[in-house]
């Protein structure tokens, strides 16, 4: 395996993989509210991890080709179009038993994985 491939593998989230482990490996930047290098394996943030896992599962079903972990400005960069957002909102509402207000359906709330998680949390979403 080349160094480049190894590097890519480190940053590729595989659905079903524990996100704590992924975030611990990543160690760079702040992903899903977890500070770089912080030890999250203790599962103190298990609720949030479950939310992130479920959200990623939903997102990959909508756009399997997109690297949602490392991408941002999802709408402006056309990684999600308006119909993807429609499906996403519907799936999120069903998965997390929440209601997303129509005024929340704006590009800012779908800017990145992080902002979508914040939206779910604001609306009381949990698994």
């Amino acid at each position, binding site marked *: 395996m080349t160094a480049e491939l190894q590097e890519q593998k480190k940053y590729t989230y595989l659905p079903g993989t524990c996100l704590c482990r992924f975030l611990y490996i990543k160690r760079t930047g702040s992903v899903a509210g977890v500070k770089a290098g912080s030890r999250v394996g203790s599962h103190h943030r298990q609720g949030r991890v479950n939310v992130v896992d479920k959200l990623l599962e939903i997102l990959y079903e909508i756009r399997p080709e997109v690297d949602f972990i490392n991408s941002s400005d999802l709408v402006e960069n056309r990684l999600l179009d*308006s119909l993807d957002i429609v499906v996403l909102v519907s799936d999120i509402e069903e998965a997390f038993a929440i209601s997303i*207000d*129509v005024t929340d359906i*704006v*590009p800012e709330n779908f800017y990145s994985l992080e902002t979508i998680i914040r939206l779910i949390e604001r609306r009381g979403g949990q698994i």
Partner: protein
Amino acid sequence: MNLQYRGKKITGILAVVPQNEVKFDDEVENYNFSVKQSMKLKKIMGYDRHRIVTEGTCVSDLAIFGLKYLLDEGLLHKDEIDALVLVTQTPDYYMPPTSNIIQGKLDLKQDMVCLDVKQGCAGYLVGLMQAFSLLEQDTINKVALVNGDVLSRKTSPQDRNTFPLIGDGAAVTIVEKDPDSSQIFTNIKMDGTRRNALIIPAGGLKVPSTPDTAAMVLDEEGNSRCLDHWFMDGMAVFNFVVNEVPPMINNLMEFSGVGLEDVDYFMFHQPNKFMLQRLADKMDVSYDKMPYNIVENFGNSSGATIPTNIAFNLGDKLLNDSYLTCLAGFGVGLTASSMLMRTGPLDFCKMVEY
């Protein structure tokens, strides 16, 4: 901008839809997306079946069919029509006006006004405003307002953002003077800074159609279309609607002195089920007061959706009773408009197939 009208009313509505019905299930393979995702959209957006004209059919064909039906049925007489207002984005020609073509083919009287108005999703309200203004004249007593579009001819069948939701259609609305009718309140907002959110980029004089503009291109989102096709920035339109429409309706209620709870029906333009349900939730209006079933049954025919909505959902009711109705149209321009009026009893309110 707030506007009000006195002494005018709608006396009849006829919606015209093409016979040709196409099912979403049969089109799913045209789109560059998984069938599973498309089926989810079907449920959420209300995509089911839509009416599409056969090749070569123009908006004048639908309009003439509707007007001729009314003439043949004795619901309208040629000499009564003092003005013909056609609202469309898909005219037969650059010149002459399509309303003149309709007048000529139906052999209507020459002592009348023919007028083309280029408007889309808010075109029913803009057309009504035009009809009300014409009726201010002593010599104009009856206006035939025609809303119609054949948008399928300018839409890519491989564009998931647009093709599943559109439908072709037209509607004839007869508007007359009535000194006893209630006051009509309306408001309208134009935002040309967001003009590119709904646009057919080529085919006008700015970008004439060429073989290059007809070349299909796959965009980043997976849709194929060319510059001669209609383009929609779905997110921009959605944000425009959810941010502008609820306060616009509140302003209309304040302007008219009527409470939201006093309105019998909210007969809105029909962009899709998702948007209308969200709008109803936001406005705290029950779904049975705000029908959202036109896209799933016929498709979104732009300016013709409101009269189609009225004919399909309230057709029989409006023959005998009157209801306080709030109309709203929003879309291309971008434009948003709403109107509060007492509607009915009407001389006719029905649908026919072309």
